[in-house]
C-alpha cells in the first residue's frame, strides 16, 4: 500500500510524519536541526527521497540541507546566496530607499523532473536556482532588477519571495509571489519577468490597483490546469483563468477573506481550501473556531469544514506555506498551526484529526506520496 510522508518545518526544527495509505497511525520523527528555524522542507517530485530544507537562525544565518534518503540523514550544501551585480534599492517600511539585504530562504521548490534542480525564494526578495543539488546557487536577476523593483516594499513578515510555481506544461514558465510586491511571471525560463497583478485591489496602498505593491500571501495551481491560479491575498481570495493576465475575486460567502494558505484538491481542480483569519490585525481564526473553508465550485461558494477541529477557545493561525495535499485516491489535506498542531484529513476535508499537537509553531507543511 502507498504511504505518505509529511514534511513539517517549525520555529525550532523539522519533523517528518509518516503513515501508510490509510493515514490513521502516524510516526513522528524529529526534531531535525533542533533549535533552528526551518522555514521550508520540500521533496523532489522526480525523486521523492531527495529532500531539501531551509535551515536558518538569527545567530548563524542561512544553511541549506539536503537528504538523499527521505530524511534519514542530511548534509549541508551551498549557502552562498549572493545578489548578482548591482544590488539596488527597494522601499523600506517608512518609504525610504534601502539596499537589498539577504536574510533567509523562505521556500524551496524542486524541479518537477530533475532532482538536482531546485529554486529558492529569498528575503529580501530574489529567486535563485541550483542545478547541482543545492551546492551552488545562481540568482535569476531579471526578477529583482525589474523596473518596478525600487517600488517594492516589505510586508510585516519581511520582503519575502514565498511562492514558486513551475508550470507543468511549459518549462519556461514560472510564477512567483512576493510580499508585498505581488505576482510575477516569466515565460522565458527566468530571464525576464512581468508583474501580473491586474484585477487585484488593495486598500493598504495609495493606488489600490497599482501594477505592484500587493501583499499576495499564497498561490495554488492544479497541475491539470496551469492557466488557473488561486490566490490568498492579504485580504481577498482571487482567481485567474489566463495565467495571471487578469484576476477576479472569489471570496464570495467566506466569513472573512483575510488569510494565508490556499490549496487545491489533488483530483478536483475546482475544489479549493482556505483558512480564514479574523483580520490583518488579529491573526487568529474567527470566534475561536478553527475552520477550513472548501469551495467545490472554483470559488464564490464556500462551506466550513469543522469535524475534528476545535470549535471553541482556539486562537491559532495557519501560515502561508503550512497547507498541503497528497495525491492518494482519496485526497489528503494537511495543515499546521502556529500552536504546533498538524491536522490531517484523509477524506478531502470532511473530517480531521491531529497527527501531533505540541510541536513548535509550524511554518510549513508539504505532503509526499511514497510507493
Amino acid at each position: 500500500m502507498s504511504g505518505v510522508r509529511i514534511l513539517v518545518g517549525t520555529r525550532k526544527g523539522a519533523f517528518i510524519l509518516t503513515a501508510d495509505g490509510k493515514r490513521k497511525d502516524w510516526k513522528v520523527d524529529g526534531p531535525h536541526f533542533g533549535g533552528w528555524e526551518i522555514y521550508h522542507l520540500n521533496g523532489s517530485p522526480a525523486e521523492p527521497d531527495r529532500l531539501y530544507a531551509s535551515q536558518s537562525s538569527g545567530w548563524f544565518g542561512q544553511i541549506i540541507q539536503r537528504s538523499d534518503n527521505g530524511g534519514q540523514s542530511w548534509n549541508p550544501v551551498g549557502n552562498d546566496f549572493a545578489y548578482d551585480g548591482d544590488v539596488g534599492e527597494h522601499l523600506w517600511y517608512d518609504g525610504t530607499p534601502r539596499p537589498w539585504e539577504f536574510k533567509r530562504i523562505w521556500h524551496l521548490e524542486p524541479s518537477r523532473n530533475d532532482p538536482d534542480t531546485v529554486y529558492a525564494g529569498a528575503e529580501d526578495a530574489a529567486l535563485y536556482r541550483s542545478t547541482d543539488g543545492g551546492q551552488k546557487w545562481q540568482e535569476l536577476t531579471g526578477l529583482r532588477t525589474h523596473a518596478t523593483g525600487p517600488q517594492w516594499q516589505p510586508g510585516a513578515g519581511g520582503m519575502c519571495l514565498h511562492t514558486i510555481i513551475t508550470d507543468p506544461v511549459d518549462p519556461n514558465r514560472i510564477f512567483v509571489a512576493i510580499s508585498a510586491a505581488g505576482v510575477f511571471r516569466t515565460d522565458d525560463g527566468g530571464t525576464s519577468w512581468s508583474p501580473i497583478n491586474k484585477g487585484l485591489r488593495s486598500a493598504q496602498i495609495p493606488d489600490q490597483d497599482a501594477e505592484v505593491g500587493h501583499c499576495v500571501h499564497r498561490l495554488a495551481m492544479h497541475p491539470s490546469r496551469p492557466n488557473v491560479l488561486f490566490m490568498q491575498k492579504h485580504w481577498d481570495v482571487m482567481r485567474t483563468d489566463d495565467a495571471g493576465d487578469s484576476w477576479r475575486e472569489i471570496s464570495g460567502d467566506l466569513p472573512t477573506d483575510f488569510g494565508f494558505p490556499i490549496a487545491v484538491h489533488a483530483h478536483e481542480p475546482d475544489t479549493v481550501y482556505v483558512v480564514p483569519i479574523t483580520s490583518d490585525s488579529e491573526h487568529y481564526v474567527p470566534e475561536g473556531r478553527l475552520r477550513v473553508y472548501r469551495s467545490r465550485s472554483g470559488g464564490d461558494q464556500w462551506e466550513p469544514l469543522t469535524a475534528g477541529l476545535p470549535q471553541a477557545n482556539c486562537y491559532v493561525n495557519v501560515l502561508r506555506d503550512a497547507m498541503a495535499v497528497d495525491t492518494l485516491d482519496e485526497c489528503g489535506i494537511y495543515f499546521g498551526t502556529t500552536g504546533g498542531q498538524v491536522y490531517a484529513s484523509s477524506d478531502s476535508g470532511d473530517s480531521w484529526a491531529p497527527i501531533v499537537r505540541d510541536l513548535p509553531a509550524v511554518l510549513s507543511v508539504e505532503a509526499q506520496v511514497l510507493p
Partner: protein
Amino acid sequence: MIRVVLPPHLRNLARISGEVQVAVTGTVTLRAVLDVVEDRYPMLQGTIRDRSTGQRRAFLRFFACEEDLSNQPPDAPLPDRVTTGEEPLLVVGAMAGG
C-alpha cells in the same frame, strides 16, 4: 595549536564535539584562525562571518582570556595565551531571542 570553542549549534552543524584545534601559520589573528576553521569545516562558511561582507555576524561574539575581542580589527594579533594554546578562542552566541 590554537584552540577554538564553537557554540553547540555550530558544533552540531560541523559534526564535531569538544574543541577545534587548528594550526595557523604567520600572525595568529581572528581572520587567520577563522579562515582555517572554515577551510576545514566548509559548512561553517557564512555562519560566523557574513558571506558577502566578511563581517562578524551581529549575534556572535569572540571572547578570549576574559576579554571581548568582538570589535577588535580582524587582523589584530590574538592574545599570547591563545597563540600558545593556553587559552581557547571562544565563539559565543549572544544572549538574544528565544
